């Protein structure tokens, strides 16, 4: 697949989270949908503003946990009842209360790993290269103290000149065109 070329989008830099959220709301209101905000710490209002409400991390975590539970409890039962039955002072082979602890630990283990790696996978990470890093002011600000709104060129409403004037009306510090 050839690498995409041309403009990825326009990125506006803001001084405060309030300005960013207001700009993001205005952009959503104006009909932009393919956009993203970049902030140095979680700004929930910005996610709301661009219409991102749900994430599937909890579901992935739940499924992982149930799988871990089933895997360990099944393994313990299979080992203790069929594969390697040990008669310990006449106790039943299927002594399920004793199986609870490892099964419980594996529930947590798998749920935790699913939450962590599921989160990364849903975010599309690891992704060392991304076009927004090309904006000259991005790396000094987005992970430190500035707030960014990027309207992406794939949005049907995106029109370089028009979008630029829209963003400039939101009182940003700067508006930069991002190349692939």
């Amino acid at each position, binding site marked *: 697949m050839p690498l995409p070329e041309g403009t990825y989008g326009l990125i506006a830099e803001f001084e405060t989270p309030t300005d960013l959220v207001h700009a993001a709301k205005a952009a959503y209101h104006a009909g932009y949908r393919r956009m993203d905000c970049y*902030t140095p710490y979680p700004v929930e209002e910005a996610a709301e503003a661009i219409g*991102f409400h749900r994430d599937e*991390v909890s579901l992935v975590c739940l499924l992982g946990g149930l799988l871990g539970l089933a895997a360990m409890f099944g393994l313990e039962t299979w080992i203790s009842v069929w594969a390697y039955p040990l008669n310990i002072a006449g106790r039943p082979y299927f002594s399920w209360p004793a199986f609870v602890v*490892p099964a419980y*630990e594996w529930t947590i283990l798998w749920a935790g*790993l699913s939450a962590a790696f599921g989160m990364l996978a849903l975010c599309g990470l690891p992704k060392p290269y991304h076009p927004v890093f090309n904006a000259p002011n991005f790396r000094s600000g987005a992970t430190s103290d500035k707030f960014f709104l990027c309207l992406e060129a794939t949005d049907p409403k995106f029109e370089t000149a028009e979008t630029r004037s829209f963003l400039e009306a939101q009182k940003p510090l700067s508006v930069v065109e991002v190349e692939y």
Partner: protein
Amino acid sequence: MATKDAPVNNPMVDPVTGEYRVIAPGHTFKSVTEEVSRIVLTGHTPLGWYFGFMLAGSIVGILMICVTWLFLKGVGIWAITIPVAWGFAIINFVWWIGIGHAGTLISAILLLFKQSWRNSINRFAEAMTIFAVVCAGMFPLIHVGRPWLGYWLFPYPNTMNYWPQFRSPLLWDVFAVSTYATISVVFWYIGMIPDLGTLRDRSTSKAGQFFYGLLSVGWRGSVRHWVRYETASLLLAGLATPLVLSVHSVISLDFSVALMPGWHTTIFPPYFVAGAIYSGFAMVLTLAIPIRKFYHLEDLVTIRHIDNCGKVMLATGMIVAYGYSSEVFMSWYSASHWEYFMMWNRMFGPIGWSYWVLITCNIALPQLMWLRKFRVNVGLMFLMSLIVNTGMWFERFVIVVTSLTRDYLPSSWGTYRATKWDYGTFLGTLGLFTFLFFLFVRFLPMIPMSELRLMLPQAKVKEHAEPLPEAGD
């Protein structure tokens, strides 16, 4: 509690609540970022760091010697023998795992309770957890005699056609501790990704950009990512919370499932957990106090943190005290001759002094922490943290040794005197812990920058004055 005794014009005291601040006033997003990342990105490593690192490194050398000799000669070089087959190895294992628990408590339980003061100490408390678990995990492994066969503990298809025994608490331990270690590492790493992104973007050296670039997995601070990240953090916190309670409970079952007097009690799981958190908070202070001084982080790790750690220690210390008194009461109330003798022997037997060391260190002296003046005194709190850690080590010593040396039959009584290899290995793990910690404070962000930014007043989104026109045009 209001700070009436604090000077009125102390900038570290919030005039509204009268509490010490969690973060010094006047900080901006940029200043907290710089304050934390300068420690890692500096080109001039402080001389003190080299000195400490070398010192810790040479103690790791002692550990290497002890472990090498152990592998050559076998566990006979330790003082363990019948009746005390579980000497320093299990004492140190329980002690280290316990220390780890405070890290998880700070990072997980306090996150769920929205105790935002924890933000500045949570990262290194988590690091403390991981390094403590590293030290802890080593002991059972080298204690099994043939550590290269340690993987036999895990269920895997093998040519011997055997499977592990799932009814034994010792096997439960394998799963509890390995899960705990894995989840702690994952939680720690996931929490660090945004800060690694900051370091990647601020690093000026090629090596730094590559190293942090690799570790930060391309984090770019997208709010969609942040939402998922926050969910994942909360879930991991929610999952780590039952781990704090379960790991030490499972470890205590190693003891309480046995029929040994002094071990066979139901108080063990809760009181082991409380003791774990108690010693862990003490270790947080032991680490935090010198680090904040050395790296001038008094703005970010404030008296408030030390005060709060003191309160948690006081509370968990009282639970531990309740555990001790319950043991004494039950040994009388059980009307069991052996239980009664065990308690008498624990207090006044040949190593009765160790019981009184633990009572002094864990119960008597910590009562000083009721005084606010004591809790806000950094030097005294450092001293107290060392005292509590000593006391908690003796607690495990008393539990393991007094019960095993004097069990039911006087003919099987024995003594226990640790050898230089026991002491050397224990000292060595202290060195390993410090060694890893030195590496951590030098190369990774020890204070979570993204969480500090969130705590600043300017991080809040203000409601905009002019409302947007109605949607749908």
